[in-house]
C-alpha cells in the first residue's frame, strides 16, 4: 500500500479513537461543576456522593483521553513532516497555547479534584473541578483553532516556501473557528449529559442509591434537552451557513447537491453514488437548502459539477456521515423532550422501558461527534490546508510505508486492548454504584 494512504489511515485511527474521550470528559466535567456546586451550597450529601462517583468515572475517561492524546502532539512531526514544515509558523502556536493555557490547568487540577476532597476547603475543591472543566474547554478551543485554520486559512502570507503568520488574531478567529468551536462544545455537553443521564437511569432501574440517582438524572435530562435544542438552532445552523460560504465543495458534498441549482432542496434520505455523482432513492424538500443556507428559497447553490474533478471530496462518506449525524441530533431532542414531558407529569420513574432506552443511548452522542468529525475532515479532502496544500504532498518523506504499517498494527492492537478494558472497568464502576458517605 502507498505511504500516503497508510499515513491517513493511521491518523484517522488515532484521532478517531482519541476523539471518543475528550467530548465525554468536557461534558462530564461541566455537569460535575453543577453537581459539586449543589453539594457545596445546599450541604447535601447525596450530591457529594454523586460527585465522588462521577468524579472517578471522569478520572478514568480523562486518563484515556490523555493517553491517546499524546499521540496527536507527536504525529504531525512523525507522519506529516512536510505539512509541519509548511504550516509550523502558524499551526505550532495554537498547539503550544493549548499546552500552556489548557493542558497544565486541567491535568494539575484533576489531581486536586480527585485526591484532594479532604485536603482543601469545599470552595477550593469546587474551584478545582471548575478549572478542570475550563481547562478541557480551552483545550478544545485551541485544537479547533488549529483545525479550523486548515479548513479556512487566514492571517498568513506564503513566504520562504511556507505559510507565515502575519496576523495572529485573524488566524485564531478565522472564519470557521467560532462556529466549529460552539458546535463541538455543544456536542461535548450532550455527550456528558447523556452519560450522566444513562448511568443515573441504570442506577434507578437497579435500585442503587435511588434518591441521589434521581437528582442526577433530572439534572442531566434537562441539561441535555436544552443543549440539544441549542445545538440544532442556532449553533448547527450557523455552522452550516458558514460552510456554505467558505467551503462550497464540502457543503455540496455533505448535502448531496451534485448540480448547481437555484431553489436547492434538502435531501432527507438518499443513497449517494460517485461515478457519475447521483443520489438514488431520494426524498427531498424543495427550496429548503437554499433557504437555510442563504435565507432565500430561490438562492443558487453551487453543486459538485462546478468544481474541478481533482478538487472534490469523496461523496459517499461525507453525505452518509453528515446525514446520520443530523438524524442523531434530532433523536437527542426527541428522546429528551419525551423524558422531560414525563418528568413534568411525574410519571418518568415508572417508565422502565424509557429509562432503559436512556442507558442504551449513552454512546450515541459520541457516535454523532465521530460522524460530524468524519464529515468535516473528509469534506476537506483532497486538501490538508484548504486550497494551499494537498494531503498527498504533506506526508513525511523519510518514513517508509512499512514503518507506518508497523505502527498502525501496534496502535490497533493497543487501542483494542485499551478499549475493551476501558468498557470493562467503566461497567464495573457503574455496577458498583455510588458509595454512601459515612459521616
Amino acid at each position: 500500500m502507498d505511504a500516503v494512504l497508510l499515513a491517513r489511515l493511521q491518523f484517522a485511527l488515532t484521532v478517531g479513537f482519541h476523539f471518543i474521550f475528550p467530548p465525554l470528559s468536557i461534558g462530564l466535567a461541566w455537569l460535575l461543576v453543577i453537581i459539586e456546586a449543589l453539594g457545596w451550597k445546599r450541604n447535601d450529601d447525596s450530591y457529594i456522593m454523586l460527585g465522588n462517583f462521577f468524579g472517578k468515572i471522569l478520572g478514568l475517561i480523562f486518563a484515556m483521553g490523555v493517553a491517546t492524546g499524546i499521540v496527536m502532539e507527536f504525529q504531525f512531526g512523525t507522519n506529516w513532516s512536510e505539512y509541519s514544515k509548511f504550516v509550523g509558523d502558524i499551526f505550532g502556536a495554537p498547539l503550544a497555547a493549548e499546552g500552556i493555557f489548557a493542558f497544565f490547568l486541567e491535568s494539575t487540577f484533576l489531581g486536586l479534584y480527585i485526591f484532594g476532597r479532604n485536603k482543601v476547603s469545599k470552595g477550593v475543591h469546587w474551584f478545582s473541578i471548575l478549572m478542570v472543566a475550563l481547562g478541557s474547554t480551552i483545550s478544545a478551543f485551541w485544537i479547533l483553532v488549529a483545525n479550523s485554520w486548515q479548513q479556512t486559512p487566514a492571517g498568513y502570507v506564503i513566504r520562504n516556501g511556507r505559510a507565515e503568520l502575519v496576523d495572529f488574531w485573524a488566524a485564531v478567529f478565522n472564519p470557521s473557528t467560532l462556529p466549529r468551536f460552539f458546535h463541538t462544545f455543544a456536542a461535548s455537553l450532550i455527550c456528558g449529559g447523556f452519560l450522566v443521564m444513562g448511568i443515573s437511569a441504570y442506577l434507578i432501574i437497579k435500585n442503587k442509591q435511588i434518591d441521589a440517582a434521581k437528582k442526577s438524572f433530572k439534572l442531566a435530562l434537562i441539561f441535555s434537552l436544552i443543549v440539544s435544542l441549542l445545538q440544532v438552532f442556532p449553533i448547527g445552523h450557523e455552522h452550516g451557513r458558514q460552510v456554505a460560504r467558505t467551503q462550497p465543495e464540502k457543503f455540496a458534498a455533505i448535502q448531496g447537491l451534485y448540480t448547481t441549482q437555484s431553489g436547492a432542496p434538502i435531501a432527507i434520505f438518499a443513497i449517494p453514488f460517485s461515478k457519475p455523482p447521483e443520489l438514488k432513492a431520494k426524498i427531498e424538500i424543495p427550496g429548503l437548502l437554499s433557504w437555510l443556507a442563504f435565507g432565500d428559497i430561490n438562492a443558487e447553490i453551487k453543486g459538485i459539477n462546478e468544481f474541478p474533478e481533482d478538487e472534490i471530496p469523496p461523496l459517499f462518506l461525507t453525505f452518509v456521515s453528515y446525514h446520520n449525524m443530523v438524524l442523531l441530533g434530532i433523536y437527542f431532542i426527541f428522546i429528551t423532550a419525551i423524558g422531560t414531558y414525563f418528568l413534568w407529569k411525574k410519571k418518568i420513574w415508572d417508565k422502565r422501558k424509557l429509562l432503559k432506552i436512556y442507558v442504551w443511548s449513552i454512546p450515541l452522542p459520541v457516535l454523532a461527534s465521530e460522524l460530524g468529525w468524519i464529515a468535516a475532515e473528509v469534506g476537506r479532502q483532497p486538501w490538508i490546508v484548504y486550497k494551499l496544500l494537498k494531503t498527498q504532498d504533506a506526508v513525511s518523506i523519510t518514513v517508509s510505508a512499512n514503518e507506518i504499517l508497523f505502527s498502525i498494527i501496534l496502535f490497533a492492537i493497543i487501542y483494542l486492548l485499551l478499549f475493551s478494558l476501558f468498557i470493562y472497568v467503566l461497567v464495573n464502576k457503574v455496577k458498583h454504584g455510588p458509595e454512601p458517605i459515612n459521616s
Partner: protein
Amino acid sequence: MIDLNTIWFILISVLIIGYAILDGFDLGVGILHLFTKEESEKRININAIGPVWDGNEVWLLTAGGALFAAFPLVYATVFSAFYLALMLLLTALILRAVSFEFRGKIMSVSYKKLWDYLFGFGSLFISLLLTIAFGNILKGIPLNENKLYEGTFLSLLNPYAIAVGLTGTVLFIMHGAIYMTMKTNGLHQQRMIKWATASWMAFVILYFISTLLTFFYANFLFENLTKNMLFWIFFILLLASILYIPVGLKNQKYFLTFISSSLLITSVIALSAISLFPKLVPSSINLDYSLTAYNSSSSQYTLKTMLIIASIGMPVVIAYTIFIYKVFKGKVIISKDSY
C-alpha cells in the same frame, strides 16, 4: 540584546529541564516500582505520584508544542527521523498513563502484576528512549544537505547514545528515590536512601564516562566552551549539587537533597544546551548541515507572539503547580480515595 531565536532556544531548554525534573522523578519511581515487593509499598509508590504525574507529563507535550511553534523544521525533521523509536515511546507512554487507572480496578493478583510490569517497564523504557534520543542529538544525526535524515532506527543505538541513555536513566532513578525519601517512612524509606546512594555513585561514574566519550564522538561540543561564563556557572552548580546529595541524605535533609538533585538535572541539561548552542540538531555528515536556532526557526512575528503567550501563561502554571505540590506534600497516607 539577545534575539528572539536565542530566547526560544533557552525556553525550549527550560521546558525540557522542567520536564526532566518533574516527570524525571515519577519515571524514577516507576522504575523503582519494579524492585518493590510488598503490595502496601507498591501502593505508596503509585499514590506518591498519582496526583501529579499527569501534570508532569504535560511538560513533555508543551515542549513538543513549543518546538513545533518555534522551530518547526527541527520538530518535523527529528520526529520523522526517529519514527520507530517515537512510536515505541508513544506505546509506552499510553500503557503507563492508563496503568494508574487500571491497576487497582480489578481484585486479581495476576492482573495487578501485569499492570505493575507495564507501569515499571513502561517507565524504564520511556526513560531510556528519551535519554538515548538526547544522546543522539548531542552527537549529531546524519542529516544531508537538504536537511533530510539518512540514518536508520538501528543507527540510533550507538555506543555514545547508549552511554548517555544509561547516565540519564540512572539520574532519574536517583531523583525518584530521593523524591520517595520525602514520601515514605521506616524500612521503605531506608531502602529508598540506599537506592539513592547507589544510583548517585552509578551516575557519577557514568557521567564521567559519557563526558570522556564526548571527546571522541562529539568533540565539537567543547569548542570555545571554557570561554563561556554560563558554562562555568552551571559547571560549579553541577559539582556543588553532586557533592551535596550524599551529605543531604546522611543528614536527613530530604527536601534539600531533592532540590539539589533537581539542580543537578538542571545543570546537566543546561551544560548540554550551552555546548550545543546555536545548534539544535548537529549533522554528523557535515556540521554545516546542522539545524540551528536560526536556520530552522519560525518567523520573527511568530516567535514574538509565542513569547507573549508564554510570558502570560507560564508564571500562572508555575504558581498553581507549586500550590498543588504544597497540598500533597508530606508522607503518603492510603485512604479510600487512593489508587
